[in-house]
């Protein structure tokens, strides 16, 4: 079917191509060198310091009471004072709720997305329900879930999963469906079955958009966990918030919010890192 090895006619002149490719490589390396770590870290750090400075300035100059709006020092003082007593275990509980709820959410979202993607009938049957699930106010179902499942972790997992899965499903379904139709045709002429096309073409090309969904969902996870704890709990950062607010323990409230924020950012950064590892090709060479 193919000619014998060593046929001279087949090898095309590769040198201009090779030169172009290596020039591109150098340009990329230069681009990488051009943005060192400090250039990426410095701007957000400066912004944070500015915000903190304005915050403290307003509090000190305005003689604002601590229970109305605490100064940064007091928030951190409260954070360190209450860390071993309340905050460490509360953070751990909320972290678990966020993480497990998020993982459940991903599992459900992937199964639903594959179902919706693979059959138009299932799409018609499931999609309205998915959208409907987002219209249900979490504030309302939180207490109901607490009545059904008690004060344990399960109602929180359900709430986190409900708040997270929608952006994951929407982005994953979009990603699976946005493969170039010509590429699907190429796969058919290359003996690709429906399943081969799904796993060799559609799933990998949906990965970047899957990660976009995950990053959006990661922001909802702590909100879901706190709502779940508001509805009924014995520990967690939401529990700390609901205890500290009526006691006018505002510096503790801010300390708990700070911890929630840090967890969100860590989850978000972790997902961004995973995306870089999983899809090194993403965003490159697009025309």
């Amino acid at each position, binding site marked *: 079917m193919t000619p014998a090895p060593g046929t001279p006619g*087949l090898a095309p002149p590769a040198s201009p*191509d090779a030169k172009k490719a290596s020039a591109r490589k150098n340009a990329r390396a230069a681009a990488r060198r051009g943005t060192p770590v400090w250039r990426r870290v410095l701007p957000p750090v400066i912004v944070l310091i500015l915000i903190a400075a304005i915050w403290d300035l307003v509090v000190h100059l305005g003689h604002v009471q601590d229970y109305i709006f605490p100064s940064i020092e007091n928030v951190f003082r409260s954070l360190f004072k209450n860390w071993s007593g309340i905050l460490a275990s509360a953070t751990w509980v909320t972290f678990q709720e966020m993480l497990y709820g998020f993982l459940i959410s991903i599992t459900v979202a992937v199964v639903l997305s594959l179902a919706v993607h693979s059959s138009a009938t299932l799409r018609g049957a499931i999609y309205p329900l998915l959208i409907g699930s987002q219209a249900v106010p979490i504030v309302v179902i939180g207490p109901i879930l607490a009545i059904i499942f008690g004060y344990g972790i399960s109602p929180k997992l359900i709430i986190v999963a409900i708040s997270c899965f929608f952006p994951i499903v929407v982005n994953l379904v979009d990603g699976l469906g946005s493969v170039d139709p010509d590429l699907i045709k190429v796969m058919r*002429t290359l003996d690709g079955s429906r399943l081969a096309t799904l796993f060799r073409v559609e799933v990998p090309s949906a990965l970047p958009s899957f990660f976009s969904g995950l990053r959006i969902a990661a922001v909802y996870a702590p909100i879901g966990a706190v709502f779940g704890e508001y509805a009924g709990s014995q520990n967690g950062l939401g529990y700390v918030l609901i205890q500290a607010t009526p006691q006018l323990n505002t510096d503790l409230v801010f300390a708990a919010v700070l911890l929630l924020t840090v967890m969100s950012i860590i989850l978000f950064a972790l997902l961004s890192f995973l995306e870089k590892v999983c899809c090194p*090709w993403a965003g490159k060479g697009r025309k």
Partner: protein
Amino acid sequence: MTSTAGSPAQEPEAGIRLEEVGRAFGPTVAVSGVSLTMPLHGHLSIIGPSGCGKSTLLNIISGLDDPDEGTVEVLGATTPDDRLRRCAWMPQRDLLLPWRDVLGNAALALENQGMHRKAARSQVTGLVKRFGLSSFERKLPHQLSGGMRQRVSFLRTLVAGKEVLLLDEPFGALDSITRADLQFWLRSALLEEPRTTVLVTHDVEEALLLGDEVVVMSARPGRVAARYATSFPAGASRRELLRLAEFTELRDELLARLEEAS
């Protein structure tokens, strides 16, 4: 390459035959009353003004699409699924999988046919070398130039082991120097490889260089307006061919026909 699953056993003279083929998309008639025959291992070029249904015709031959009227026969196969099994299709854009390296992209068809990833990769390694892509085996598509990507795409098409290659403006997206290189390279590759090829292009020189027969199609609805046989010396270089009197005469004739057709 050893022949893999699905290599059809065909009668020697049976190539591609279209009879009174018509295809409409809603109110738009893309092609109408197209009859064509070509022998096994023939190289047919189809040129025509844009929108004349060239690509539709390729889709119909490949089995990706089925005509509304008329019959299509590819190496004895008439149903779309059987035609798909005999045809490989290569569009203008390379459409490589950006997460697969050169070897992985080239081995795609073998993996689809059930071969294990490693075996498939090692089987295409030799071909990758002969295609002038050695030392690029593990590069991702975005690390390659346009010409190299198109070569990988052609390699991927070839590895499928299909008897019929359908090329839809395969070099249309490349700069003229790379295009000229690859045209000549493909010409020598096809001289050595006994494949049946149908090439769609709007580049008259490309049609003449790569086809032993050239069909001119009229504007929509696409019909066969004229058909020419070419016979140029096989060993001639591109520049020698472009200087040949018979080449230039045929080129002018085809250009005139194209102007009439559009």
